Protein backbone atom coordinates (compact mmCIF):
# COMPACT_ATOMS: atom_id res chain seq x y z
CA UNK A 1 0.00 0.00 0.00
CA UNK A 2 1.49 3.37 -0.93
CA UNK A 3 2.20 5.81 1.83
CA UNK A 4 -0.09 8.79 2.04
CA UNK A 5 2.45 11.35 0.77
CA UNK A 6 2.81 9.43 -2.49
CA UNK A 7 -0.80 10.13 -3.23
CA UNK A 8 -0.56 13.85 -2.65
CA UNK A 9 -0.28 16.21 -5.56
CA UNK A 10 3.25 17.20 -6.35
CA UNK A 11 4.17 20.88 -6.24
CA UNK A 12 4.57 20.83 -10.00
CA UNK A 13 1.05 19.46 -10.35
CA UNK A 14 -0.32 22.24 -8.16
CA UNK A 15 1.37 24.91 -10.25
CA UNK A 16 0.35 23.29 -13.52
CA UNK A 17 -3.24 22.97 -12.29
CA UNK A 18 -3.40 26.68 -11.46
CA UNK A 19 -1.77 27.55 -14.77
CA UNK A 20 -4.17 25.37 -16.75
CA UNK A 21 -1.21 23.40 -18.04
CA UNK A 22 -2.25 19.98 -16.73
CA UNK A 23 -3.59 17.50 -19.27
CA UNK A 24 -7.41 17.28 -19.01
CA UNK A 25 -7.43 13.79 -17.49
CA UNK A 26 -4.73 14.71 -15.00
CA UNK A 27 -6.62 17.87 -14.07
CA UNK A 28 -9.78 15.87 -13.35
CA UNK A 29 -7.80 13.48 -11.14
CA UNK A 30 -6.12 16.39 -9.36
CA UNK A 31 -9.44 18.11 -8.62
CA UNK A 32 -10.92 14.86 -7.36
CA UNK A 33 -7.96 14.46 -5.06
CA UNK A 34 -8.31 18.01 -3.76
CA UNK A 35 -11.89 17.33 -2.70
CA UNK A 36 -10.85 14.59 -0.34
CA UNK A 37 -7.30 15.38 0.69
CA UNK A 38 -6.86 17.13 4.06
CA UNK A 39 -3.55 18.80 3.17
CA UNK A 40 -3.30 19.54 -0.56
CA UNK A 41 -6.04 22.26 -0.62
CA UNK A 42 -4.02 24.32 1.86
CA UNK A 43 -0.93 24.01 -0.33
CA UNK A 44 -2.96 25.04 -3.33
CA UNK A 45 -4.41 28.00 -1.47
CA UNK A 46 -0.94 29.26 -0.65
CA UNK A 47 -0.14 29.55 -4.34
CA UNK A 48 -3.57 30.94 -5.13
CA UNK A 49 -2.80 33.83 -2.79
CA UNK A 50 0.27 34.60 -4.92
CA UNK A 51 -1.85 34.56 -8.06
CA UNK A 52 -4.36 36.93 -6.44
CA UNK A 53 -1.67 39.29 -5.15
CA UNK A 54 0.02 39.56 -8.54
CA UNK A 55 -3.30 40.05 -10.27
CA UNK A 56 -4.15 42.91 -7.92
CA UNK A 57 -0.99 44.86 -8.66
CA UNK A 58 -1.91 48.21 -10.22
CA UNK A 59 -0.11 49.73 -13.17
CA UNK A 60 1.74 52.99 -12.68
CA UNK A 61 1.55 55.90 -15.14
CA UNK A 62 4.54 57.09 -17.13
CA UNK A 63 5.84 60.50 -16.11
CA UNK A 64 7.10 61.41 -19.58
CA UNK A 65 5.74 60.78 -23.03
CA UNK A 66 8.11 58.09 -24.27
CA UNK A 67 7.05 58.69 -27.86
CA UNK A 68 8.97 61.97 -27.99
CA UNK A 69 12.21 60.28 -26.99
CA UNK A 70 11.64 57.34 -29.33
CA UNK A 71 10.70 59.45 -32.35
CA UNK A 72 13.80 61.56 -31.85
CA UNK A 73 15.92 58.51 -32.55
CA UNK A 74 14.08 57.04 -35.50
CA UNK A 75 14.80 57.31 -39.17
CA UNK A 76 12.38 55.97 -41.80
CA UNK A 77 12.79 52.26 -42.32
CA UNK A 78 14.81 51.46 -45.45
CA UNK A 79 12.71 50.25 -48.33
CA UNK A 80 13.98 46.69 -48.55
CA UNK A 81 11.84 45.95 -51.59
CA UNK A 82 13.72 48.28 -53.92
CA UNK A 83 17.01 47.34 -52.40
CA UNK A 84 16.43 43.65 -53.02
CA UNK A 85 15.27 44.28 -56.57
CA UNK A 86 18.49 46.17 -57.24
CA UNK A 87 20.64 43.51 -55.59
CA UNK A 88 18.95 40.66 -57.40
CA UNK A 89 19.14 42.53 -60.71
CA UNK A 90 22.83 43.29 -60.31
CA UNK A 91 23.63 39.74 -59.31
CA UNK A 92 21.59 38.27 -62.15
CA UNK A 93 23.53 40.43 -64.61
CA UNK A 94 26.79 39.36 -62.95
CA UNK A 95 25.81 35.70 -63.18
CA UNK A 96 24.92 36.10 -66.84
CA UNK A 97 28.21 37.79 -67.65
CA UNK A 98 30.05 35.11 -65.71
CA UNK A 99 28.34 32.33 -67.62
CA UNK A 100 29.10 33.96 -70.95
CA UNK A 101 32.69 34.73 -70.02
CA UNK A 102 33.48 31.28 -68.72
CA UNK A 103 31.78 29.59 -71.64
CA UNK A 104 33.76 31.22 -74.38
CA UNK A 105 36.89 29.55 -75.78
CA UNK A 106 38.86 32.75 -75.45
CA UNK A 107 38.38 32.76 -71.68
CA UNK A 108 39.81 29.28 -71.34
CA UNK A 109 42.76 30.25 -73.53
CA UNK A 110 43.38 33.41 -71.56
CA UNK A 111 43.25 31.58 -68.24
CA UNK A 112 45.58 28.86 -69.52
CA UNK A 113 48.05 31.50 -70.67
CA UNK A 114 47.81 33.30 -67.36
CA UNK A 115 48.46 30.11 -65.40
CA UNK A 116 51.61 29.48 -67.43
CA UNK A 117 52.87 33.04 -67.00
CA UNK A 118 52.15 33.04 -63.30
CA UNK A 119 53.69 29.56 -62.99
CA UNK A 120 50.75 28.31 -61.01
CA UNK A 121 51.43 24.86 -59.55
CA UNK A 122 48.18 23.31 -60.58
CA UNK A 123 45.77 23.69 -63.45
CA UNK A 124 42.90 21.72 -61.94
CA UNK A 125 40.79 24.84 -62.01
CA UNK A 126 41.13 24.99 -65.80
CA UNK A 127 39.49 21.60 -65.97
CA UNK A 128 36.86 22.90 -63.62
CA UNK A 129 36.23 25.86 -65.93
CA UNK A 130 35.64 23.46 -68.81
CA UNK A 131 32.31 22.57 -67.20
CA UNK A 132 30.54 25.81 -68.05
CA UNK A 133 31.82 25.53 -71.58
CA UNK A 134 30.38 22.04 -71.83
CA UNK A 135 27.19 23.46 -70.41
CA UNK A 136 27.09 26.11 -73.07
CA UNK A 137 27.57 23.55 -75.80
CA UNK A 138 24.77 21.40 -74.43
CA UNK A 139 22.51 24.42 -74.21
CA UNK A 140 23.28 25.39 -77.79
CA UNK A 141 22.67 21.88 -78.96
CA UNK A 142 19.26 21.86 -77.30
CA UNK A 143 18.47 25.27 -78.75
CA UNK A 144 19.39 24.09 -82.23
CA UNK A 145 17.18 21.05 -81.89
CA UNK A 146 14.27 23.16 -80.72
CA UNK A 147 14.74 25.59 -83.53
CA UNK A 148 14.99 22.87 -86.18
CA UNK A 149 11.76 21.21 -85.14
CA UNK A 150 9.86 24.40 -84.35
CA UNK A 151 7.58 26.43 -86.61
CA UNK A 152 8.93 26.97 -90.07
CA UNK A 153 9.88 30.57 -89.39
CA UNK A 154 11.95 29.54 -86.42
CA UNK A 155 13.34 26.39 -87.97
CA UNK A 156 15.10 28.44 -90.58
CA UNK A 157 17.00 30.34 -87.95
CA UNK A 158 20.70 29.75 -87.84
CA UNK A 159 22.33 28.00 -84.92
CA UNK A 160 23.21 30.42 -82.18
CA UNK A 161 26.69 31.87 -82.58
CA UNK A 162 29.02 32.18 -79.66
CA UNK A 163 27.72 35.31 -78.01
CA UNK A 164 30.93 36.29 -76.42
CA UNK A 165 33.44 36.90 -79.12
CA UNK A 166 33.63 40.54 -78.10
CA UNK A 167 34.40 39.71 -74.50
CA UNK A 168 37.76 38.13 -75.00
CA UNK A 169 39.51 40.46 -72.61
CA UNK A 170 39.45 38.33 -69.50
CA UNK A 171 40.60 40.97 -67.04
CA UNK A 172 37.92 43.35 -68.23
CA UNK A 173 35.27 40.73 -67.73
CA UNK A 174 36.50 39.76 -64.30
CA UNK A 175 36.81 43.38 -63.21
CA UNK A 176 33.29 44.03 -64.42
CA UNK A 177 32.05 41.06 -62.45
CA UNK A 178 33.76 42.26 -59.33
CA UNK A 179 32.26 45.73 -59.69
CA UNK A 180 28.78 44.34 -60.22
CA UNK A 181 29.10 41.96 -57.32
CA UNK A 182 30.30 44.63 -54.97
CA UNK A 183 27.63 47.06 -56.14
CA UNK A 184 24.97 44.51 -55.39
CA UNK A 185 26.29 43.44 -52.04
CA UNK A 186 27.23 46.89 -50.85
CA UNK A 187 23.57 47.78 -50.86
CA UNK A 188 23.02 45.07 -48.29
CA UNK A 189 25.63 46.68 -46.11
CA UNK A 190 24.15 50.15 -46.07
CA UNK A 191 24.33 51.59 -42.56
CA UNK A 192 21.15 51.15 -40.58
CA UNK A 193 19.92 53.08 -37.57
CA UNK A 194 20.68 50.10 -35.36
CA UNK A 195 21.43 46.44 -35.83
CA UNK A 196 18.30 44.34 -36.10
CA UNK A 197 18.51 41.58 -33.55
CA UNK A 198 16.88 38.24 -33.90
CA UNK A 199 13.46 38.21 -32.29
CA UNK A 200 14.65 35.91 -29.58
CA UNK A 201 17.36 38.26 -28.49
CA UNK A 202 17.13 41.60 -26.89
Amino acid at each position, binding site marked *: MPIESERHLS*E*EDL*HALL*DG*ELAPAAAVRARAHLETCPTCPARLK*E*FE*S*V*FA*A*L*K*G*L*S*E*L*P*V*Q*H*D*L*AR*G*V*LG*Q*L*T*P*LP*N*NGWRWIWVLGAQAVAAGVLAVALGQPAAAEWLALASVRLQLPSTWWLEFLAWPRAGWESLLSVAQTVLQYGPSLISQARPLPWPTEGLAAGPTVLAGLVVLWLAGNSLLLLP*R*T*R*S*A*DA*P*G*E*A
Partner: protein
Amino acid sequence: MAEASDRDLVLRTRGGEVDAFGEIVRRYQVSVFNVCYRLLGERRDAEDLAQESFLRAYQRLRSYDAERPFGPWVRQVAARLCLNYLERPDRSTFPLDEENDWPAASGEQPEARAREREQGQIIRRALLALPAKQRTAVELRHFQELSYDEIAAAMGLPLSDVKSHLFRGRKALAEKLKSADRI
Protein backbone atom coordinates in the same frame (compact mmCIF):
# COMPACT_ATOMS: atom_id res chain seq x y z
CA MET B 1 -13.22 59.16 -36.83
CA ALA B 2 -12.31 55.59 -35.92
CA GLU B 3 -8.97 55.01 -34.26
CA ALA B 4 -6.38 53.42 -36.53
CA SER B 5 -5.70 49.78 -35.79
CA ASP B 6 -2.27 48.57 -34.73
CA ARG B 7 -1.96 46.83 -38.06
CA ASP B 8 -2.62 50.04 -39.98
CA LEU B 9 -0.10 51.92 -37.88
CA VAL B 10 2.52 49.23 -38.40
CA LEU B 11 1.96 49.23 -42.16
CA ARG B 12 2.13 53.03 -42.28
CA THR B 13 5.37 52.94 -40.30
CA ARG B 14 6.80 50.41 -42.72
CA GLY B 15 5.79 52.74 -45.53
CA GLY B 16 7.99 55.45 -44.05
CA GLU B 17 5.55 57.30 -41.74
CA VAL B 18 7.63 57.54 -38.60
CA ASP B 19 4.88 59.47 -36.81
CA ALA B 20 2.61 56.44 -37.05
CA PHE B 21 5.06 54.62 -34.82
CA GLY B 22 4.75 57.47 -32.32
CA GLU B 23 1.05 56.65 -32.08
CA ILE B 24 1.93 53.02 -31.36
CA VAL B 25 4.35 54.11 -28.64
CA ARG B 26 1.69 56.27 -26.98
CA ARG B 27 -0.74 53.38 -27.13
CA TYR B 28 1.55 50.92 -25.35
CA GLN B 29 3.96 53.02 -23.35
CA VAL B 30 2.17 52.48 -20.02
CA SER B 31 2.07 48.70 -20.28
CA VAL B 32 5.66 48.46 -21.56
CA PHE B 33 6.89 50.82 -18.85
CA ASN B 34 5.15 48.70 -16.23
CA VAL B 35 6.81 45.53 -17.50
CA CYS B 36 10.16 47.26 -17.05
CA TYR B 37 9.24 48.76 -13.71
CA ARG B 38 8.10 45.43 -12.27
CA LEU B 39 11.36 43.85 -13.38
CA LEU B 40 13.74 46.69 -12.52
CA GLY B 41 12.09 48.54 -9.65
CA GLU B 42 13.61 51.85 -10.64
CA ARG B 43 11.68 54.44 -12.59
CA ARG B 44 14.47 55.96 -14.62
CA ASP B 45 15.88 52.59 -15.66
CA ALA B 46 12.37 51.42 -16.47
CA GLU B 47 11.71 54.41 -18.71
CA ASP B 48 15.05 53.98 -20.46
CA LEU B 49 14.44 50.30 -21.07
CA ALA B 50 10.86 50.92 -22.17
CA GLN B 51 12.13 53.43 -24.70
CA GLU B 52 14.79 50.99 -25.83
CA SER B 53 12.12 48.29 -26.21
CA PHE B 54 10.21 50.47 -28.66
CA LEU B 55 13.39 51.19 -30.60
CA ARG B 56 14.11 47.45 -30.84
CA ALA B 57 10.56 46.82 -31.93
CA TYR B 58 10.92 49.49 -34.61
CA GLN B 59 14.09 47.90 -35.93
CA ARG B 60 12.36 44.55 -36.20
CA LEU B 61 9.16 45.90 -37.66
CA ARG B 62 9.87 44.45 -41.10
CA SER B 63 10.02 40.91 -39.74
CA TYR B 64 7.07 41.41 -37.39
CA ASP B 65 3.81 39.74 -38.48
CA ALA B 66 1.37 42.66 -38.58
CA GLU B 67 -1.59 40.29 -38.18
CA ARG B 68 -0.48 39.47 -34.64
CA PRO B 69 -1.31 41.83 -31.78
CA PHE B 70 1.42 44.38 -31.25
CA GLY B 71 1.10 44.82 -27.48
CA PRO B 72 2.09 41.31 -26.35
CA TRP B 73 4.96 41.32 -28.82
CA VAL B 74 6.50 44.58 -27.64
CA ARG B 75 6.00 43.60 -23.99
CA GLN B 76 7.97 40.42 -24.61
CA VAL B 77 10.71 42.47 -26.22
CA ALA B 78 10.74 44.62 -23.08
CA ALA B 79 10.90 41.61 -20.76
CA ARG B 80 13.85 40.14 -22.65
CA LEU B 81 15.66 43.45 -22.65
CA CYS B 82 15.16 43.80 -18.91
CA LEU B 83 16.36 40.25 -18.27
CA ASN B 84 19.54 40.96 -20.22
CA TYR B 85 19.97 44.18 -18.29
CA LEU B 86 19.46 42.46 -14.95
CA GLU B 87 22.01 39.82 -15.79
CA ARG B 88 24.71 42.31 -16.60
CA PRO B 89 27.58 41.84 -14.19
CA ASP B 90 27.88 45.56 -13.48
CA ARG B 91 24.23 45.81 -12.53
CA SER B 92 23.79 46.97 -8.94
CA THR B 93 21.00 46.03 -6.56
CA PHE B 94 17.47 47.08 -7.22
CA PRO B 95 16.05 50.01 -5.37
CA LEU B 96 12.31 50.39 -5.40
CA ASP B 97 11.11 53.87 -6.06
CA GLU B 98 8.68 55.24 -3.62
CA GLU B 99 5.43 55.16 -5.45
CA ASN B 100 4.50 58.73 -4.71
CA ASP B 101 3.29 59.31 -8.22
CA TRP B 102 0.17 57.26 -8.20
CA PRO B 103 -2.59 58.76 -10.29
CA ALA B 104 -5.20 60.71 -8.40
CA ALA B 105 -8.42 58.76 -8.47
CA SER B 106 -11.44 60.80 -7.75
CA GLY B 107 -13.95 59.48 -5.26
CA GLU B 108 -11.57 56.90 -3.84
CA GLN B 109 -11.26 56.55 -0.08
CA PRO B 110 -7.84 57.65 1.18
CA GLU B 111 -7.61 54.63 3.50
CA ALA B 112 -8.38 52.17 0.74
CA ARG B 113 -5.91 53.91 -1.48
CA ALA B 114 -3.21 53.78 1.16
CA ARG B 115 -3.86 50.07 1.70
CA GLU B 116 -3.67 49.36 -2.01
CA ARG B 117 -0.47 51.31 -2.25
CA GLU B 118 1.06 49.50 0.69
CA GLN B 119 0.03 46.13 -0.70
CA GLY B 120 1.50 47.09 -4.04
CA GLN B 121 4.80 48.00 -2.39
CA ILE B 122 4.93 44.65 -0.63
CA ILE B 123 4.33 42.71 -3.84
CA ARG B 124 6.81 44.76 -5.82
CA ARG B 125 9.49 44.35 -3.16
CA ALA B 126 8.85 40.62 -3.06
CA LEU B 127 9.16 40.46 -6.84
CA LEU B 128 12.37 42.46 -6.84
CA ALA B 129 13.90 40.15 -4.27
CA LEU B 130 13.65 37.24 -6.70
CA PRO B 131 16.59 36.27 -8.91
CA ALA B 132 16.30 37.77 -12.40
CA LYS B 133 15.19 34.61 -14.19
CA GLN B 134 12.55 33.76 -11.59
CA ARG B 135 11.25 37.32 -11.74
CA THR B 136 11.10 37.26 -15.52
CA ALA B 137 9.33 33.89 -15.56
CA VAL B 138 6.74 35.25 -13.11
CA GLU B 139 6.35 38.41 -15.22
CA LEU B 140 5.81 36.46 -18.42
CA ARG B 141 3.38 34.02 -16.85
CA HIS B 142 1.31 36.28 -14.61
CA PHE B 143 1.36 39.63 -16.36
CA GLN B 144 1.80 38.61 -19.97
CA GLU B 145 -0.10 35.33 -19.63
CA LEU B 146 2.26 33.26 -21.73
CA SER B 147 2.17 29.47 -21.63
CA TYR B 148 5.14 27.50 -20.33
CA ASP B 149 6.27 26.80 -23.89
CA GLU B 150 5.98 30.46 -24.87
CA ILE B 151 7.97 31.51 -21.83
CA ALA B 152 10.66 28.98 -22.73
CA ALA B 153 10.83 30.44 -26.23
CA ALA B 154 10.86 34.02 -24.98
CA MET B 155 13.60 33.39 -22.44
CA GLY B 156 15.58 30.99 -24.59
CA LEU B 157 15.53 28.33 -21.88
CA PRO B 158 14.50 24.67 -21.75
CA LEU B 159 10.97 24.04 -20.54
CA SER B 160 12.22 22.30 -17.40
CA ASP B 161 14.27 25.37 -16.45
CA VAL B 162 11.29 27.65 -17.00
CA LYS B 163 9.12 25.53 -14.70
CA SER B 164 11.84 25.48 -12.11
CA HIS B 165 12.25 29.28 -12.17
CA LEU B 166 8.52 29.88 -12.13
CA PHE B 167 7.74 27.46 -9.32
CA ARG B 168 10.63 28.60 -7.15
CA GLY B 169 9.69 32.20 -7.77
CA ARG B 170 6.11 31.59 -6.69
CA LYS B 171 7.19 29.68 -3.63
CA ALA B 172 9.47 32.53 -2.59
CA LEU B 173 6.71 35.03 -3.22
CA ALA B 174 4.28 32.98 -1.15
CA GLU B 175 6.72 32.94 1.76
CA LYS B 176 7.38 36.68 1.51
CA LEU B 177 3.71 37.53 1.32
CA LYS B 178 2.99 35.26 4.26
CA SER B 179 5.70 36.86 6.37
CA ALA B 180 4.46 40.34 5.36
CA ASP B 181 0.98 39.40 6.58
CA ARG B 182 2.39 38.42 9.95
CA ILE B 183 4.07 41.80 10.44
